[in-house]
């Protein structure tokens, strides 16, 4: 299997290198793998995730995602890369003035798909996350768990190469969390999507084989 993500001697920092967060990280993640990244608060889990979708640039070393080096990538190429990613946030990040259906098809809208395709896909995705009857509602009319399911549906909209999730169940109760893990397991298993999840702790109900990295003292280590 080909590498989807590859980091070599990766350093991540803020304030133009003054505040170092990750030092000399080396790892590779293959297509279809499910990966958990854990670590204490403030260890740099979210920073690593931000680097993976190009929000912050590596201060040293290389970070290659989908064949593109994020340390030297041009803005236009980064935009293109992001259209092949599905990103899930702890705070859902839905557009509150848009309907649920419109939120779900945002990646398709960005890629210029026709309205007809968008409508068909919205119905399919919302059915998949069991929210078909909520298509015309607005995000704030839904519960937290339902909003996160909309977030998952949005992340899956374009069959992405990789899904990056930042504490996706951090604000949810146990039942809603289980639904979200179930959806992500399915995406990994059925679509062979690489899934990388940043979380405080790995869910006990998880049934798929997975890899586990831990961030400690600025280093990224794999737990075997």
């Amino acid at each position: 299997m080909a590498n989807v993500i590859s980091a070599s001697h990766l350093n991540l920092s803020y304030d133009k290198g003054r505040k170092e967060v990750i030092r000399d990280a080396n790892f590779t993640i293959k297509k279809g793998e499910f990966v958990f990244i854990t670590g204490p608060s403030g260890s740099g889990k979210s920073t690593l995730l931000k680097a993976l979708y190009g929000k912050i640039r590596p201060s040293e070393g290389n970070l290659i995602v989908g064949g593109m080096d994020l340390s030297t990538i041009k803005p236009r190429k980064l935009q293109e890369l992001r259209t092949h990613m599905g990103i899930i946030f702890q705070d859902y990040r839905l557009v509150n003035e848009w309907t649920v259906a419109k939120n779900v098809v945002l990646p398709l809208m960005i890629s210029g798909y026709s309205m007809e395709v968008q409508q068909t896909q919205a119905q399919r995705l919302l059915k998949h996350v069991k929210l078909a009857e909520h298509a015309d509602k607005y995000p704030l009319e839904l519960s937290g768990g339902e909003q996160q399911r909309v977030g998952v549906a949005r992340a899956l909209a374009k069959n992405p190469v990789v899904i990056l999730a930042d504490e996706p169940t951090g604000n949810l109760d146990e039942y809603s969390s289980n639904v979200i893990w179930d959806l992500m397991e399915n995406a990994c298993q059925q679509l062979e999507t690489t899934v990388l999840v940043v979380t405080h702790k790995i869910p006990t109900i998880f049934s798929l084989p997975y890899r586990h990295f831990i961030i400690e003292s600025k280093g990224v280590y794999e737990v075997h």
Partner: protein
Amino acid sequence: MKFIKNHLMFILPLMVILLGVEFYLVFERTTNSYEKGLREGYTMLVVTKEPMTLSDLKALSPHISSSEPIEREEIVHKVLKGVTKSSTEGLLHALPYFYNVGLDAYLKVSVLEEIKQGLESSPQVKRVETFGSSYADSYRLFSFIKLVLKLFIGFMSVVSLFLIIKQMEIWKYLHKQRMQIMEVFGAPLMLRSGVLFKVAIFDAIIATMITSLIFFFIKYKWAAQSGIEIMVQKQEALFRMSDIGLLLGVALSIVILAVYIVVFSSKGVQE
């Protein structure tokens, strides 16, 4: 209420610019006819030794557009009433030729001087009288009014443009969440700024419509009923249908420029 306030804060400065543009157009049209009157009413006096045709005079200055000879016989007849015919003929023979010379445009006093020098450089021309003093007074007043109006419109436009950009930054803040989310999913700058363009273009159309309505009212109601002679006479110059297109073009150019300035002044939407 907040929605209306947000739009008014954009529409009002834009209207100030559009009103300035329209006032300038109206002033230009009105003053053009006034300028034409001044130009047509003005002639300089050229005294020559020999008769000169219009093309002879044009050869000395391209600004000369007309020449009207003053009948010498008439002058002599008026001056020398009761004098013998032979004396009259002698005087007529000695008298130079007089021409009222018109110009093709309303020119600066310095250009008048150049024309005068050009004419006097010819050995056939004895004297040129430009009546520069009264001409200069009218010209300076006219130029001063034009300059003041242009400066005022320019100043108001700059201030209004800053207000428009400020309001655009407020809009950008209001739409920050949506723009951030779109950015994360790879939307290009133009797509995630689409909402700013939409709102700005909508407001540009509204501002154009209101400005046009104000001038429609001035033209068909106020000017017609004002009883002010010049307003009634120049009613046609107050507003033309083609001005709507021009105002819309100006408004759209300004808002698109303002959106570009705001969008490109900060590359990413900061979290």
